[in-house]
């Protein structure tokens, strides 16, 4: 216990006053020479014991009154163990929610301003000798300043410069980062304070797994920190967001029309009867639309454009709406191609027309070229034999098709694996020449390592007999972008084809999140499956791409099907150019460019020089400063220009917060203390570190003693 006015403790001496008064009065007695002593003696003997007790009780109460008054005025503070150890220093990790929902707010100030002030006050209020770390939660945890230290003033200075970020708040990841951070800090007394607006998208039940993982890490620490959740401000209810952009093409060539369908959604409670939506291409306004958007409503706006030149372009759809600007616009970087280089590896070449394994495929992929037409094909194919395939032949290709390839050498396989991992597309058509053993034992993965082949080949299905029943592709609604074209019957029906022979594919017992079955055969076997691998994608068709195992190539849908599969596989742009804010922007260059400088220009026009670093077989330019949404332009040392677009997660656009009950529940499951204002936090923290002031209960005790003294006196008098 400590005292805020310790000097007033001297008043405790007043406890002796009643005793002194008693003694003083006793010494100042009058003397009476008395005759009726026998009457006094009888009264004295009868009552003395009781009177002594009463006197003692009254004396104690009377002594307690000035003592309690003195204690009360000295303002005692009950301190915890930390204070008893003489230590109120704390290792404090502040998790600051700087997601862009924090830029909204119900009051005059945005929530983030309140959060920043709260963080500042918390740092200022920490005991001398405390060490601090501030982690920003938007778009993944990021320290405000790199080195954790004791310099609170510097942190406060940095906080003052900080604005709300633009990413989604990553609660689980941020808590894990905080656990790692606090483990490195100095003081035994440790605390993590999360300053947040409790937006539902960040704190909802779907995020619970990440949170509980982080809490496990926190509790497993040798010195588990206290966890406080500080709810800041009230979320604004008015927000319109351009939620998504959908494109009519998976990949865009020069001169091709691109339909851009923008989805605009009103998350707020206010109607927009005349909301203007603008469409900008390469920074220039191309068209605008005016729509009516009621509260809670979602509408789509369609824009069309085309690009004359190949290379990196960008478009933007902007809704002229509320003050929370970050999600009012959505941009996209659009690579426009002159051609899509595709390598066809022919495992069964033939001199006769349309007898080679890839002959039908070649025609389907570049029909104009084959027809000697004037129109240009976007896809440019090159056909090689299995033996010709190598790292060199894969260079600059976007898609590789393995058609009835018996097997590959380890070198070829390694090169192909690198190609896929770096974002290349691979389409596999096994056929009669394919080595089942190699495919299953090597191509599908060795010793538990996942291979390139998405599924093992079990056995052949169907029969080559003419009279044998044929399998057909099951016609259904296709959700996959490569096949959704065939949801429209005008584009042909996949069920028209008859498959004589096919490989039965072994589906995994456990569902694999990277594996997708695009279409099935009427036999129930998978027809087309896709598997993600690294940044690339691999598709496996259960049958051959020529006419040996069925009439697939002669059906009208064969051409659009192959075009869609190849363009889909080629559509992967790696490194990605449309990213969430906070993610690293990267571009690949030939290895020879390593050491040279690429320049990134951010949305506010600031230029950032980035040195190219050698990684594997190439040089990479990586920019980690994409903290605000918008367009980033990279000018490479070779004169190339690449547009990157950093966008906020649209999940954050829904500003709906957790209800108070939900907040309580989240705090309870996390074992955290929920506080709803900075003042409440400060009171709790003050109580925790410096103890709790107890003058109020003492004042009540004093009043009780005064009353008690009166009551006792009256009662004793009545008994006499």
């Amino acid at each position: 216990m400590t005292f805020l006015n310790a000097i007033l403790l001297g008043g405790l001496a007043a406890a002796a006053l009643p005793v002194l008064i008693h003694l003083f009065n006793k010494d100042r007695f009058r003397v009476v020479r008395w005759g009726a002593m026998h009457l006094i003696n009888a009264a004295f003997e009868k009552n003395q014991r009781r009177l002594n007790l009463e006197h003692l009780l009254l004396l104690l109460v009377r002594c307690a009154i000035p003592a309690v008054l003195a204690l009360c005025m000295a303002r005692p503070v009950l301190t915890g163990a930390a204070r008893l150890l003489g230590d109120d220093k704390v290792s404090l990790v502040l998790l600051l929610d700087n997601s862009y929902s924090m830029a909204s707010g119900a009051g005059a100030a945005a929530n983030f301003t309140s959060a920043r002030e709260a963080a500042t006050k918390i740092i200022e209020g920490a005991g001398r000798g405390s060490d601090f770390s501030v982690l920003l939660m938007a778009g993944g945890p990021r320290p405000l300043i790199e080195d954790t230290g004791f310099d609170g003033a510097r942190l406060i200075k940095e906080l003052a410069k900080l604005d709300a970020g633009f990413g989604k708040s990553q609660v689980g990841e941020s808590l894990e980062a905080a656990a790692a951070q606090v483990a490195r800090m100095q003081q035994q007394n440790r605390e993590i304070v999360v300053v947040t607006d409790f937006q539902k998208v960040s704190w909802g039940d779907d995020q619970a797994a990440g949170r509980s993982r982080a809490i496990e890490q926190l509790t497993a620490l040798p010195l588990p920190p206290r966890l406080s959740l500080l709810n800041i401000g009230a979320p604004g209810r008015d927000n319109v967001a351009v939620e998504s952009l959908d494109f009519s093409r998976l990949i865009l060539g020069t001169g091709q029309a691109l339909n851009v369908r923008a989805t605009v959604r009103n998350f707020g409670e206010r109607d927009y009867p005349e909301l203007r939506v603008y469409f900008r291409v390469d920074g220039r306004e191309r068209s605008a639309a005016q729509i009516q958007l009621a509260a809670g409503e979602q509408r789509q706006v369609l824009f069309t454009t085309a690009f004359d030149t190949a290379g990196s372009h960008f478009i933007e759809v902007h809704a002229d709406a509320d003050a929370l600007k970050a999600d009012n616009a959505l941009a996209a970087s659009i690579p426009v191609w002159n051609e899509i280089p595709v390598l066809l590896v022919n495992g069964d070449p033939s001199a006769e027309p349309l007898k080679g394994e890839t002959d039908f495929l070649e025609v389907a992929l570049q029909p104009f070229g084959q027809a000697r037409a004037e129109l240009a094909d976007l896809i440019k194919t090159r056909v090689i034999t299995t033996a010709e395939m190598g790292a060199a032949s894969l260079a600059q290709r976007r898609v590789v098709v393995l058609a009835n390839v018996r097997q590959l050498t380890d070198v070829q396989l390694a090169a192909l694996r690198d190609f896929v991992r770096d974002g290349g597309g691979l389409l596999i058509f096994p056929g009669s020449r394919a080595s089942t053993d190699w495919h299953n034992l090597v191509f599908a993965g060795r010793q538990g390592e996942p291979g390139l082949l998405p599924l093992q080949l079990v056995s052949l299905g169907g029969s080559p007999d003419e009279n044998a029943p044929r399998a057909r592709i099951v016609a259904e609604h296709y959700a996959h972008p490569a096949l959704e074209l065939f949801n429209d019957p005008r584009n042909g029906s996949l069920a028209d084809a008859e498959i004589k022979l096919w490989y039965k594919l072994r589906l995994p017992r456990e569902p694999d999140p990277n594996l997708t079955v695009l279409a099935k055969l009427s036999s129930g076997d998978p027809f087309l499956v896709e598997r993600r691998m690294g940044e690339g994608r691999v598709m496996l068709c259960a049958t051959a791409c020529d006419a040996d195992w069925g009439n697939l190539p002669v059906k009208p849908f064969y051409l659009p099907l192959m075009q869609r599969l190849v363009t889909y596989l080629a559509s992967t742009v790696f490194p990605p150019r449309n990213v969430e804010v906070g993610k690293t922007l990267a571009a690949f260059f030939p290895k020879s460019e390593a050491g040279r400088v690429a320049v990134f220009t951010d949305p506010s026009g600031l230029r950032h020089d980035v040195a190219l670093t050698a990684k594997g077989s190439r040089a990479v330019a990586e920019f980690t400063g994409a903290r605000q949404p918008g367009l980033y332009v990279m000018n490479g040392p070779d004169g190339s220009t690449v547009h990157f677009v950093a966008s906020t997660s649209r999940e954050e656009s829904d500003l709906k917060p957790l209800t108070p009950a939900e907040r309580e529940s989240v705090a309870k499951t996390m074992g955290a203390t929920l506080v709803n204002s900075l003042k409440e936090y400060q009171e709790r923290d003050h109580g925790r570190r410096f103890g709790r002031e107890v003058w109020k209960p003492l004042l009540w005790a004093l009043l009780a003693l005064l009353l008690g003294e009166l009551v006792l006196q009256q009662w004793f008098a009545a008994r006499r």
Partner: protein
Amino acid sequence: MAHVSDFLAPAELQKISNLQVVARLVVEGFFSGLHKSPHKGFSVEFAQHRQYVQGDEIRRLDWKVFGKTDRFYIREFDEETNLRATLLLDLSGSMDYAGDGHPSKQQYATRLAAALAYLMLQQRDSVGLVTFDSMVRRFIPQRSGVGHLRALMDELHSAKPGGETALASVFRELVPRIHRRGLLIILSDCFGEVKDLVTALAQFRHARHEILLFQILDRDELTFPFKRWTKFDSLEVADQFRLIEPAQFRAAYLDNLKKFQHELVAGCRRHRIDLVPMVTDQPYADALATYLTKRLSRG
């Protein structure tokens, strides 16, 4: 109308040291309210008229009868039977208590005794006096005559309180010494063991004495008015004291007093003893009235 006795309050009379003067003032003051002269009609009792014969004193003629009948008649009086009274004056230490502005109980008792003695001697009664504390200090046998008054007054004047109270033993000692039955007038605060006292008084009653017990108390002893811390020093036993806060004991004290009085009253009633409680701020006349009532009742 103001009465002479009103001015004869004990506090006033305390200033007068001559007991005889005090006694006379008291008695005369008392009677002046009742009759024009204290010397008429009380010394003898009228018996009959008889025919005047020569040699009779002229002053004894009944002139009223002569006026009515024109004959001389002499008024004949019976000589009144002499009353033998003994005053028993308590001089124990407890009688020395005096409240503020009042005479001590002993002074009050002494003056009252003097007044009674004066009155009785005036009526030609014979009066004795016993002073005592734990033992009999002085025993003056009963005598009549004004000359005896001087002896009584001297004794009363020299009486000083001291010693412990032992009423019972003193009274037991006195029983054989007062052999002729008569009126015993006890002036005491009666402090002590009530049971023993009543037993002793019963012995007097057994000896066919009439007893008039004046219990003389101070107002303080009845109300216990003390407030702040007080050391009560015993008037009877040296070094005996109680240092108490009186307010806290008042109720218990008064309770004890009430019980004490109750026992005493009950004991006196049982033995047909006339108990007259007197307080030292009470006029002496009240005591005289009580006495005279008692005197008359004896016929």
